[in-house]
């Protein structure tokens, strides 16, 4: 029986349900010390002096002078230090590292830092420092706007969002072979290797091993490089293993969050409802260092015009510097922000021309043969219309839209898409690799892709089993250990199945040919070991120009439509989601239960983003940095979800699969805001907290 397409038994084993699975804080090494990070308490200025106000006996103390290589966290731009030297650019910036055997002594150590403070820049609209600019042009927007029958203008805002992986960041650095091994909660082991080579010197021995990881969502894409570097410095100086595990408050205060955005749309539309011009301005708050802002902005801008056909499009994006902790990767990576804006805007445009939101979208939705804002031609697997029709049908949208009017209930929808894999030439530059190794009983998968809950181990094993023609039970997946696995690229960008799974499929086909009909056991007995390593072969038809930002941005897109039903409490202005319909077209559901899990989980995060997840910033710091005060949805906050998966295969994907991980979080927020609009309340900002909804009601 085929493994692909079936909800086979998970490769994880029972460990997660028996308490035996080992996460970073469950792991200990002999002689291990605990590490702690001393951080800045002002958002901008310079350190004037620093004093250790404790008995340093038994302590290892590390500052920037202990760094053998470069004091730079290698990522895109070489601007972020591992440890502050003098200049302070944000609150909670790491300055000093301490380690001690006794956690109480460690936490009791007092370090006195004096600063010369300066006035921080906290508003991305006021900031004059641009971290990155993006421009996308198609046709003649100005002429089209000038001649349009109607122009609809609107500005939409999204706030920070905090990942709240239930397991905080944590790593253990262990001195090994005159270098270092890092074990930890890590999405991208080779990112950590790269950062450590910069920190310790290019010849340093570095090995990174992923421990069972309690959620990532992008929050453990780049930040683990920082934690790992810190633990490594302490381990090298002390000669002992060092564990750094953040407590929840430190994690929320200091690590990356989703970029806040301000997006302005001016849309030209003809009287018969056709979009003739889209002019979009995207501003993102990048925080104090570049980190991943260029790519977040890039993806956000590429998706900013939405899944619609429009001959004249201009998108201008900029990521701005502020004296706040740098923002970073979070599921969706720029697209949730810009898709929120365009989908909330489209409902207003539809209203302006007197069309209902379904008909307007169906008229303008991308179809095969149409081109996107970057000029990419949609192929046969473009499913915008299909997901829209299915979601509208199964949610009984039309009837409820009429019935709910004036009853305190609202229903709204959103149409969205998500390009999988790295943008344009990104996948080529990654040159990801995957390896298959025959064992005496079966085959072993060796990739650096991490399972962070989404089911990587299982899904890769399914692809290999069916491609190699061996039972699923005969496939094992190696723990990502950079000494043993090739660099498959990072576990991000919805690429783990579509890209890395495809490389594994090709490995399997090559291996199958070499095995000439023998089973692994037979082959191993007769010929000994066999392994195949292959590199990603991006489709040759992909043409992308980094300078003009035009061409084929992604190998393909996945498609989605959400319908959200909400209820408002007129006394308290609380908006409660009562049902979410999610129809997603993803090429192929390799493991239906895990695919459904991605959709339900991502949707819940999208609902939180829409309504109750509010990062409160004051003077450059998150002041509600605890789970009591930063509220993610509980069982009583999440509605009934109706999920339907459509499959319109992507010809170059493994078994037709497209990327899935991020798509689900793109749609719920605008669907909810459009449902609130159906209640007669004009909300253009998320989270649509009761306080914000009250203000919107008052200004009616």
């Amino acid at each position, binding site marked *: 029986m085929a493994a692909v397409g079936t*909800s086979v*038994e*998970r490769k*994880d*084993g*029972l*460990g*997660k*349900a*028996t*308490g*035996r*699975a*080992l*996460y970073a*804080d*469950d792991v200990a090494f002999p002689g291990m010390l605990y590490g702690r990070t001393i951080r800045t308490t002002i958002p901008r200025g310079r350190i004037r002096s620093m004093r250790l106000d404790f008995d340093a006996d038994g302590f290892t103390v590390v500052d920037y002078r202990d760094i053998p290589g470069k004091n730079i966290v290698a990522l895109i731009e070489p601007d972020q230090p591992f440890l502050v030297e003098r200049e302070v650019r944000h609150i909670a910036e790491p300055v000093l590292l301490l380690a001690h055997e006794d956690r109480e002594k460690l936490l009791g150590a007092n370090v006195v830092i004096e600063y010369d403070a300066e006035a921080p820049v906290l508003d991305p609209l006021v900031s004059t420092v641009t971290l990155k600019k993006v421009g996308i042009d198609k046709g003649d927007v100005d002429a089209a706007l000038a001649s349009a029958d109607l122009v609809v203008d609107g500005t939409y805002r999204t706030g920070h969002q905090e*990942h*709240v*992986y*239930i*397991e*905080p960041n944590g790593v253990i650095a262990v001195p090994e072979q005159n270098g270092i091994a890092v074990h930890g909660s890590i999405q991208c082991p080779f990112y950590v290797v790269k950062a450590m080579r910069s920190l310790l010197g290019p010849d340093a021995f570095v090995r990174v091993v992923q421990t*069972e*990881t*309690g*959620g*990532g*969502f992008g929050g453990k894409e780049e930040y683990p490089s920082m934690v790992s570097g810190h633990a490594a410095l302490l381990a090298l100086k002390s000669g002992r293993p060092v564990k750094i595990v953040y*407590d*929840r408050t430190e994690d929320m205060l200091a690590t990356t969050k989703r970029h806040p955005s301000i997006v302005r749309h001016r849309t030209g539309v003809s009287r018969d409802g056709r979009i003739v011009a889209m002019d979009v301005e995207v501003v993102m708050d990048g925080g104090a260092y570049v980190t991943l802002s260029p790519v977040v902005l890039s993806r956000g801008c590429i998706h900013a015009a939405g899944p619609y056909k429009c001959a004249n499009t201009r998108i201008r994006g900029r990521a701005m510097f502020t004296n706040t902790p740098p923002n970073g990767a979070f599921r969706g990576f720029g697209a949730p922000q810009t898709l929120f804006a365009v989908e909330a805007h489209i409902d207003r445009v539809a209203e302006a021309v007197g069309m209902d939101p379904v008909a307007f979208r169906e008229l303008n939705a991308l179809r095969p043969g149409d081109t996107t804002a970057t000029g990419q031609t949609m192929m046969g697997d473009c499913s915008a219309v299909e997901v829209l029709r299915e979601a509208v049908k199964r949610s009984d949208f039309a009837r409820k839209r009429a019935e709910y009017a004036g009853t305190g209930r609202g229903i709204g929808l959103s149409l969205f898409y998500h390009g999988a894999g790295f943008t344009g030439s990104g996948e080529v530059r990654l040159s990801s690799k995957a390896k298959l190794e025959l064992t005496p009983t079966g085959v072993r998968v060796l990739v650096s892709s991490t399972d*962070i*809950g*989404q*089911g990587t181990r299982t899904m890769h094993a399914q692809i290999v089993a069916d491609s190699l023609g061996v039972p699923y039970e005969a496939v094992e997946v190696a723990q990502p250990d950079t000494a043993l696995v090739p660099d498959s690229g990072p576990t991000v960008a919805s690429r783990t199945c579509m890209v890395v799974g495809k490389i594994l499929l090709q490995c399997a086909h090559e291996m199958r040919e070499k095995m000439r009909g023998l089973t692994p056991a037979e082959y191993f007995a007769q010929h000994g070991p066999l392994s195949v390593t292959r590199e990603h072969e991006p489709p040759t038809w992909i043409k992308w120009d980094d300078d003009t930002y035009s061409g084929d941005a992604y190998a393909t897109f996945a498609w989605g439509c959400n319908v959200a039903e909400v209820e408002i409490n007129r006394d308290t202005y609380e908006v409660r989601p009562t049902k979410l319909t999610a129809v997603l077209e993803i090429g192929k559901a390799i493991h239906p*239960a*895990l695919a*459904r*899990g991605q959709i*339900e*989980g*991502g*949707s*819940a*995060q999208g609902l939180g983003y829409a309504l109750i997840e509010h990062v409160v910033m004051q003077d450059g710091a998150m002041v509600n940095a*605890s*789970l*009591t005060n930063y509220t*993610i*949805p*509980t*069982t*009583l906050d*999440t509605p009934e*979800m109706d999920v339907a998966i459509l499959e319109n295969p992507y010809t170059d994907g493994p078994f037709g699969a497209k990327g899935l991980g991020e798509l689900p979080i793109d749609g719920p927020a605008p669907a909810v805001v459009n449902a609130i609009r159906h209640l007669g309340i004009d909300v253009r900002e998320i989270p649509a907290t009761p306080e914000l909804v009250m203000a919107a009601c008052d200004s009616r």
Partner: protein
Amino acid sequence: MRFTLNGKAANVAAHPMARLLDVLREECGLTGTKEGCGEGECGACTVLVDGEPVCACLVPFAQVADQRVVTIEGLGDGHPLQHHFLNEAGAQCGICTPGMIMVACTLPPNASLDEIRTALAGNLCRCTGYEAIYRAIAKAAEQGAARVAT
């Protein structure tokens, strides 16, 4: 201090004000109970004390003297909930799973969906959106999962 841990008599030396969570994870070497927040919000540290789910990060060790404490390890690996949590994908990353199971194993087999939601309102999951957790519990109930003897 004497107490019953996973059905067996235990005598563990630890500071009376130490968090039960730390005593379980460190002195007792049982790392299945997780710390997600240290403020009783996430429920990842849920254990049973005298049959009732509590957050171990909010219990002073002294207060379980002579009490029956059950952790995820006390379920062994044969409880139907464990198998279903994996295969219905009620566990994705798994960090909330021990806490979820410790609450779920106290539910009556005919608990309604509303009762399940309410019982689990003190357990946060960031991966699943909870739906698969309800499916896992329903599947286990179908199989007549026995309530954990405490």
